[in-house]
């Protein structure tokens, strides 16, 4: 009985590999086709931004390299990324002061850490009216998103329901991507649904109609509902209007997508030979890997240039029986320096890093139009908004980056930052090097030095 999950794991992993191979080949052709368009326009492949979040902090002693400069021996937890060392940056000293509750005695740090992670802003204390700040993926999406069919892609592997905690909305623990300060971007956890969004033609609600016909009617339906919303707006109070404005923004965004689809001829649409996933795999490991595949697929086909991945929710108590124990992640993260708990935490950390490695490996295998690979043109941010799960602190955050951002990012180094350097400085540097014209982000004081290639 206890052996069962392990043997099933092995089997599934084997299957995963077998499926991945033919897919990789066919996708390379697709990517070349997609890449030609950009190459013809005389530009480099676009920069992709991809942000991962893991909850509950990490076991810090095996996370940080022990000396600054070129990365030689990776610390134990990061070792699964050894093959990509040249593209890796590690940091020590980054802090999110905006994750502190600043005098509020109630907040527990979980929601605050996740909310500030990509926004550099402080979560507003409320059980319902959430407010924090625009996240970097969304800023980047607003900058380049009109060039792609989907401005951004939000993924996660745990049901997004999260209750309130200590006066703060559960949304803070769940969603890291924010379209603006008050509109979080929910993530999708079903790989099938993600696949259908990426390749819209297959998700036609109306079986008989052609896409063009369907879109014509969709446009007039959207016209109607927008009209309807406008009339309604004049007869409701300001609180209601804020909600209706979210609706109207959504309608305009969907309209834009339809318009863009109309201007793209069928031949330009990426066609993946990737098999449509059947739903949410029962096996969590398989679920994580499928999401990695889909992110690579979305980037490769230039369907989107910004994605976020909430591996699990902040404060999750999910367990990882295939690692040989059933303790919940959150329970373990309150380790009290117990050796056994720390060992288990390291195992979970390393497992998450290995999944990241799985995605990175695929990105390296994707050749882009100018001969570079997808990882070269990406900026991957990975980390947690909590440092030590037992202390719930936000100092010396466990954060790494991968990818060269199209050659602008210096990599392969461990940066020892001044104590309590705002993590927003790193976020600002990433945005600037991806071409977003801003000088300040969140609580940044300057773009993090040492990253310019």
């Amino acid at each position, binding site marked *: 009985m206890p052996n069962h999950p392990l043997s099933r794991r092995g089997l599934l992993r084997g299957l995963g590999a077998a499926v991945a191979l033919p897919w990789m080949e066919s996708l390379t052709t697709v990517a070349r086709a997609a890449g030609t368009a950009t190459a013809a326009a005389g530009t480099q492949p676009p920069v992709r931004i991809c942000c991962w979040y893991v909850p509950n902090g990490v076991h810090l002693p095996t996370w940080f390299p022990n000396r600054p400069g070129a990365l030689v021996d990776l610390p134990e937890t990061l070792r699964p990324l050894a093959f990509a060392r040249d593209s890796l940056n590690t940091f020590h000293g980054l802090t999110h002061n905006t994750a502190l509750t600043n005098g509020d005695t109630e907040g527990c740090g979980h929601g605050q850490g996740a909310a500030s992670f990509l926004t550099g802003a402080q979560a507003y204390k409320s059980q319902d009216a959430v407010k924090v700040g625009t996240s970097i993926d969304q800023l980047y999406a607003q900058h380049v998103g009109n060039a792609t069919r989907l401005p951004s892609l939000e993924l996660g592997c745990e049901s997004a329901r999260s209750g309130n905690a200590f006066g703060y909305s559960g949304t803070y623990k769940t969603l890291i991507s924010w379209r603006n300060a008050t509109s979080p971007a929910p993530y999708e956890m079903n790989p099938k649904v993600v696949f259908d969004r990426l390749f819209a033609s297959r998700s036609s609600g109306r079986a008989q109609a052609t896409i063009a016909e369907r879109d014509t009617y969709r446009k007039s339906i959207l016209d109607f509902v927008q009209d309807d919303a406008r009339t309604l707006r004049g007869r409701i109070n300001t609180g209601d209007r804020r909600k209706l404005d979210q609706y109207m923004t959504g309608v305009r965004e969907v309209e834009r997508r339809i318009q863009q689809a109309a201007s793209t001829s069928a031949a330009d649409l990426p066609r993946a030979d990737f098999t449509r996933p059947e739903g949410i795999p029962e096996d969590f490991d398989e679920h994580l890997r499928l999401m990695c595949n889909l992110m690579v697929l979305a980037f490769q086909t230039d369907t989107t240039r910004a994605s976020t991945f909430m591996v699990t929710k902040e404060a999750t*108590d999910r367990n990882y029986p295939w690692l040989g124990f059933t303790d919940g992640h959150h329970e373990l993260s309150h380790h009290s320096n117990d050796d056994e708990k720390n060992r288990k935490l390291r195992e979970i950390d390393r497992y998450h890093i290995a999944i990241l490695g799985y995605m990175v490996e695929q990105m390296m295998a994707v050749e882009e139009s100018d001969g570079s690979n997808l990882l070269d043109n990406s900026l991957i941010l990975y980390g947690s908004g909590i440092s030590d799960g037992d202390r719930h602190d936000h100092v010396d955050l466990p954060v790494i980056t991968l990818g060269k951002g199209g050659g602008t990012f210096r990599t392969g180094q461990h940066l020892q930052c001044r104590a309590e350097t705002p993590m927003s400085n790193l976020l600002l540097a990433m945005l600037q090097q991806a071409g977003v014209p801003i000088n300040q982000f969140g609580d940044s004081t300057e773009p993090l030095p040492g990253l310019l290639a």
Partner: protein
Amino acid sequence: MTRPTLMLPTVAFLLLPLSALAQDLDPAANDPYQRTMWPLIERYCVDCHAEGTAEGDITLDIYADQVSALRDGGATWLRVLDALENRVMPPADKPQPSLAEFDAMIAWIENESLRAQAGGPNAPTPAVVMRRLNRQEYDNTIHDLLGLDLNLSETFPADDIGFGYDNVGSALNISPIHIEKYLEAAERALDATIRLPDADGFPPIELIGLRTYPLPADSPVEFEHSLKPGRYLANFSLVRVGIPEAVPPPRLVIGFGTDQRTLAAAQVQDETVVYRFWIETVEGDKLVRVALAPDEAEGPNVKPPAAVAANVSGDQRYGGQIGLHVDSMVVHGPITLDPATLPPSHSTILFENPGPNDQSRLAAARAITERFATRAFRRPLREGELDRLLEIYEMANEQGESFECAVQITLTAVLASPRFLYLVEPDDASAEIAAADRPLNDFELASRLSYFLWSSMPDEPLLDEARRGTLRTNLKAQVVRMLEDSRADRFIANFTGQWLQLRRLAAATPDPALFPNFDDTLRDAMRQETERTFAYVLRKNHPATELLDADYAFVNEPLARHYGIDGVAGDNFRQVSLPDRRRGGVLTQASVLTLTSNPNRTSPVKRGQWILQQILGTPPPPPPPNVPKLDEGAKAAEVASLRDRLEIHRANPQCASCHSQMDPLGFSLENYDAIGRWRESDGAFPVDPSGELAGGLEFADAQELKPLLAHSAAKKFNRALIRNLLTYALGRGLEPQDFATIETIRDRLAADNNRIHNILFGIVESPAFQNRGVPEATRDQLSSRITGGD
């Protein structure tokens, strides 16, 4: 039972002679704060809560009189109330007030502070922020609207939660992905509802042959057909010679006899314009007729040849003859829709069958759309709404779509409209009016009722009451009817799922090595037991406190086996009488016991916290930072029992104030393991479930704790239940203004033996439920105007 309101006169009476004497000398004698509250605060509280030394940010020596205490102390008094009710303050090592003094302080806060803040019976009630349907409500509404179980919300993003519930308007957001999904779901819903005519498999019939006819501007082209009566899908090609492709193709009128349609082009390719349309023939029809639509005669497709840019035709058949040519007419059919094979949803929604002409079809579309939109918007349509919707129908109709398809597209717009997706209570005229409160109209009230008790749209009887204006008169009868209806099961599941946190049971992962017999069948039975318990108390109108302590349980065979109850066979649930009180009431149900446990052990802290928060409505604050958590590794378990280890943890004074409340509650349930099975020992250590509640009430185990809670804590439990139900019913967080509503309902409940219908009646009859309410910003303006006056 001690009732604080009874105590207050006693205290006042004792003070009366003194204050009567001093009345002229001391204005304080008339000030309720100075008379009642301040002497007690001075004696018991200000040692630690004085300005400058205030512990826990509570300063109690800064209020000079009733006015200042009420003006600035709102949040403070709530916390003081909490501390007093829980007997957390004054700390045990400080002088303790008598019970009467406790009650006097509590009564002052409740009556003077909280009720005063609520602003009296005429104060405006807070508005509900326009609620979008959450996932359950969406699915239920689609189900009740169409009669189909489609579970379309599966692909929607998870709903945001506010104040513990996923139907709180201010918390629910919409992002572009929602709009995408709503549009898709609307299409899927109507695809499933309406069967479109299908011409697949019918061979093409060419009606013109190789001939072509020039189409003049002023007269139709006619040719014969010999089609059998029935419906046909036709493809017609018009060739434009010498007319630039950029000129928009003309609209045509095409008839096959009786039926005649005005049509827009479907497609333009080079010189050929294709029209694709559905048309019907009846007995006696003989002639196909093609003409330009009346307003096209002057259009750019019909100009003197000289004016048209010379563009030599590529098609030899026309020999460069500039102008329009009727080229080919291919039909598929005849198609008959056999009513017997149609899904019931089809005939219900498309209840009119139009005759073969545009007017009849438009009339039918109008009737169908009106009925559908009225139900979907949950109110009669407003002036102009129907016409605007029918513009969509006419657009699709002109594209040549079948009647069914054009209606389908129109109804899709209804389901994508904000009036369907939100519970919206707009004003008739401009938003200025929204500043004042108003009673909901009967349709709005019907929707509040149905989304409260059914998580779905109102049904015909409710809408009928609304139409007749009798809903308020028959409100109680409707509530009772609605509770008996099976749709109330949705309320029961949604409410218990969130109030008692039953939804978390779905994600519970008991360690399979320790609990091999835990499976989904058992998990499901656990959930059902709790839902059935609540449903029973609710539908039978039993005392609410029966939820805490009862002499019966609802079990099926898997659950009975789990509990060690004999004689229950099969998967069906039944009510059994219990020989003792090991079971009975939600606290000792396997569902609650499992969802408050860790995968590999019980968690008295989680259980205690759950009781404090969900049952007593007094959630403990978060643990102070930097306190090591309880060591629960295997090694620790060998050294001491969990209880002993928690005692050590509790020795830390930072932890003690909360754990002294949580732990006795949690430990009383140690006779139940991490999946709720009865046990006498935990590993090597015998279980000690005894304890003492704040205020000195002792109990030997859970069997004694349950009646204790149901009686001595009935006030707190009732208030917590009312607060939860009110939050859920309104779809908003509660505010100080709601205190009066809560207390009114609590009085009503207490006066009728805690029978639970009192809560539901109290809620639906309250102004908070019956009025549209005033948004926060406007209320602030109003109150500043009021205070600005004095």
